[in-house]
């Protein structure tokens, strides 16, 4: 009766969640512009404080052109403008890791990253690890190892492990611990997170 690691227990799907009232942002400020993909929309002149600037962000393979103030962080834009709430705010000062995303495949804190700084780079969020309704490998390993409690640090932990495994597909326990040492878990599920990372490495290797 163990859960199917790739399908979520009982095949519960993402759709069920849409019954939750109004979760996620509305994409009013978002427009898609395939042509802008990869193109530098960086301000060559000074963008004055308080003024919004057009920023093209490539997130999970899609380009979003958004109006953003220069001070808006990537975390803010992902959550409040684009509507991807996987990355979580925990401290907004680089001290918890709940906001971890991959930028060009490397884990970074979205809260310490200005949105304007990310143009021309690839951002991957938790949502980007999904294959349609199917969980990504690391996510599936987290389910199997019960690598979370409240789940609020989990998106960041998953992204840290994803980043680790992309750089080092077969990490030792010590490398795993170091790899997630930029992600707090107040619920304290660390040992299960270590197991999940190990399991994810196995799954990725087809074991």
């Amino acid at each position, binding site marked *: *009766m*163990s*859960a199917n690691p790739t399908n*979520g*227990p*009982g*095949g*519960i*799907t*993402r759709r069920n*969640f849409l019954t939750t*009232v*109004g*979760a*996620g942002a509305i994409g009013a400020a978002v427009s898609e512009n395939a042509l802008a993909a990869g193109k530098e929309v960086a301000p060559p002149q000074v963008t004055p404080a*308080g003024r919004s600037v057009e920023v093209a962000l490539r997130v999970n393979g899609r380009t979003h052109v958004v109006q953003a*103030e220069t*001070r*808006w962080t990537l975390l*803010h834009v992902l959550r*409040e403008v684009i509507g991807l*709430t996987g990355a*979580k*705010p*925990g*401290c*907004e*000062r680089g*001290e*918890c890791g709940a906001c971890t995303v991959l930028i060009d495949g490397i884990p970074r804190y979205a809260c310490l990253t200005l949105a304007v700084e990310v143009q021309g780079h690839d951002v991957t*969020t*938790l*949502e980007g690890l*999904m294959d349609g309704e199917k*969980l990504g490998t690391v996510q599936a390993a*987290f*389910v199997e190892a*019960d690598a*979370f*409690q*409240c*789940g*609020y*640090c989990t998106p960041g932990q*998953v992204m840290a492990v994803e980043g680790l495994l992309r750089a080092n597909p077969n990490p030792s*326990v010590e490398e795993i*611990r*170091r790899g997630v*040492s930029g*992600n*707090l*878990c*107040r*619920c*304290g*599920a*660390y*040992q*299960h997170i*270590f197991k999940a990372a190990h399991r994810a490495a196995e799954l990725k290797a087809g074991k």
Partner: protein
Amino acid sequence: MADESKDIYYVEGTPIPETPLPGKEPPPWRETSVVGKALPRVDAYERVSGSAAYPSDVHLPNMLHGAILRCPHPHARIRRIDASAAAKLPGVRMIISGNTPEADLIWKKDPVGDMRLFEPICRFEGDVVAAVAAETPYQAWDAAHAISVDYEVLPFVADERQALKPGVPVVHPKGNVSKTDRYERGDIAQGFAAADVVLEESYRTECELHTPLEPHGCVANWDGRSLTIWESSQGVYAVQSRVAEVLKLPLARVRVIGHYMGGGFGSKLEPGKYTIIAALMAKLSGRPVRLFLTREETYLCVGNRPPTNMTVKAGVKRDGTLTALEFSVLGTGGAYTAGGTSLADWLARDLYTCPNVRTISTDVFINAGPARAFRAPGHPQGAWALEQMMDTLAEAIGMDPVQLRLKNIPSVSQAREGNPPYTSTAFKECLELGAAAFGWEKARGEARAQRASRHIRRGVGMAGGLWFAGGGRPPSTVVVKLFPDGSANLNMGASDLGTGTKTVMAMVIAEELGIKPEAVQIECADTGTTQYATPSGGSKTVPTEAPAVRNAAVQVKQKLLEMAAEALKVDAAELVYRGRDIASRQDSSKRIAVKDLEALKRQGIVVGIGYRGPNPKNMTTHPFAAQFCEVEVNMLTGELKILRFLAAQDSGRVMNRLTYGNQVIGGITMGIGLAATEQRILDTGRTGKMVNRNWHDYKLPTALDVPVDVTVLPVEPVDTAANNTGAKGLGEPATIPTAAAIANAVYHATGLRITCTPIHPQQLVQRLADRPKEG
């Protein structure tokens, strides 16, 4: 796609518990088929895919963002607030403060007097002064920073150890004593006289902050006269009642939703002033308001584990019999009445057999944020003192620390009126089995043997504990609905804090109905649509809710049996529910599939209502624990490394082996924080302000601070008296002995008794340097 509608029942022929006659409580389970297994969570997908909507993810159309301006002084009178400049900033839609007539509300009744929402005198750094709602969170913060406030800064007291000295500023006019409690049994003087060894030692634990990963906050929205709040909360009904009380609304017009929440540990058992402020700003602006605290704010005003200053005096005979225990504690709940010493003395009263006990607790006010319950209030602190004292006593009489504890195990709660027996206690087994599985004696010996040579020394230590509550109690009401295809829905008011509550409840229903846990859909934590529940916490959620859920599932079966009896034209008592179908015990040809029950099809669903029954009379239910650890100390630098842990836990029946293990490792992580890294630091001398209000300066254990090697050993006594599931609580007991076990191991490694938390290099290297040189 697989046809999941055919996949509702688990294994064919798996025994399903007997259905009691209507009106009868089901007897405790014996063997179980689902309960106790290691199953992934029913909401795991939502939590790892990002689809779980935490309250801080809720984004309503046209929503404003709030920010709160807080008092920067530990004690100050507000003379004047000028928000005129702030009001002119872009995006600002609403500013409220003590000047706003609608905001003149009583927030809480306190024995020292009513607390207003906006107090004219701020008695702790971080009390609210004004609040803003604006189009973006950035604009809200710009405006909050632009409000100018004229404060009359008042003298303060920020150290509870100074609070009762003459001439110290008072927090409230009636003085700085909040509460004094005394407890006494037997004759303490006689007890000490009868002892062969009497020892006395003082201990201190520092103030800890809960800091769950999701900050405190909510989204508030009005539909005309009705208010809906999405709050990151441990108990939606607790939020509902306080909000209704403060805003003077009927309960029915306040709906609180908290499907997911990012951790609480006690700090989200109640709403905050921010909840009321968000609701008010939403009302006044006519727009939804999201108001989440910044991380820095959460350090100041949403609770803490109070610091404790404890003294233990203990008498013991050479054979290990405890003769007397005297325990005193000075603590503080901060600037208001908040249980600054609650339960710190409970272990001294109740953990070990001792005829003569006296405890004194003095709770004082200081100008600091009020405390809130924090995972096992009082207990890890009490264990820090008592369990170190037990270690010291054992050494003094030349006895093994485990043996000394085994010598003094009670079967009744001595601290309770009438000495009620425990419904079960496996404290003895926790100690014995734990020591065996850990390899206690061998590890102690080996650590000693390799000691002399190197500057890295090993030590092995252990400690025990019990939790004051953890048996659960009424009230709880839940509803189980069975659909005609056999799948079910559970409607329950309780929140799942990440402890796995939902999963356990799905497993209880699965056990009774013979269906798979994933065939159970759960609706929880919503005062608008789910049944009443007390907040989740105190290790009482599973023992409270699981029996009610079981009762509801049983009622569903009773109703199905009646339907089948009618269909088969036999007496219901003759029938047995087998999951997929219902059959006669006498004549197995008389059977009918659940999905063929005409009455069920007609009705659409069968509803079972379950209540949490009363606890047994004259007995008391508690979980127990014994934890063992091995550490390494760098004698040159004072660095402490925790190498391994073993936790032997008696929480009654294991409901889900996977989430059980998770709770325990989480408890140990938190205990490591208390022991080694966490400490609120107030600038007590000059400003009284908190200097480490962030996760860098206030240090939670990271992945590199916990051992990889943690073994969780459930010890499962059969408890048929506690409740109909046999489960006792787990969350709190898992963290109670941890810090003390570490301190004992550090003593074993170094010969230094560290009586104050945290055992960080700063403290340890100094103590190592101060010790007389070894000969």
